[in-house]
């Protein structure tokens, strides 16, 4: 699941450039291009994630692992549950040794991510307003 920024002027759900920036920040911090997702499973049910990790997001996008994998993307554990990253292949923070990264990795990751089918869900636990 990924919380959505729903302020893009033309109604787009994702902004390619913003996603490239996000994945590059991940690279700068952890050494690989990744996009953050929340994994839904016990004990992190959808409602718990919506309330505790996405309460400031009006909408979220739900992806299946199978759909992401069908686009050539992997899921790696990162941070604390329920946080995970989706990456190209099997890169991840736990991967030992130097990583092979190409200049096009961020763009390729994002373009594959944007091809994945998702389900839009209204966050019924959305908390409008500041903070």
């Amino acid at each position, binding site marked *: 699941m*990924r*919380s*959505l*920024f*729903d*302020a*893009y002027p033309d109604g787009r759900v994702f902004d390619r450039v*913003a996603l490239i*920036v*996000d994945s590059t*920040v*991940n690279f*700068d*911090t952890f050494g690989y291009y990744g*996009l*953050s*997702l*929340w994994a839904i499973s016990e004990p992190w049910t959808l409602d718990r994630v919506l309330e505790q990790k996405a309460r*400031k*997001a*009006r909408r979220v996008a739900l992806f299946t692992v199978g759909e992401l994998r069908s686009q050539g993307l992997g899921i790696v554990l990162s*941070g*604390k549950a329920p*946080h995970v990253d989706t990456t190209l292949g099997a890169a991840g923070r736990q991967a030992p040794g130097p990583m092979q990264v190409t200049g096009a990795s961020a763009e390729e990751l994002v373009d594959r991510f944007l091809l994945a089918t998702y389900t839009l869900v209204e966050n019924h636990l959305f908390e*409008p*307003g*500041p*903070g």
Partner: protein
Amino acid sequence: MIQIDIEADLNMEDDDERNFARLPAGNPRIKVGAVAVAGRPGFWSWVQIDEIDDTIVFFHQITARQAAAHGELAVPATA
């Protein structure tokens, strides 16, 4: 439109469950312990800054009440 101090993807967390983002240039408000607004216009939160390195700022989300208690807010426009 909200004034965002730290352009951030609030989905991103590190091993300590902190959010992080690229360090904005030239904003004197961005210092450890300070309260700021992070995110993007459709998905943002008050945050408190935990750590700053050369290029990345780490922070955690706080409530509006906690932000107000800090007492040094430059209140942004309405969301």
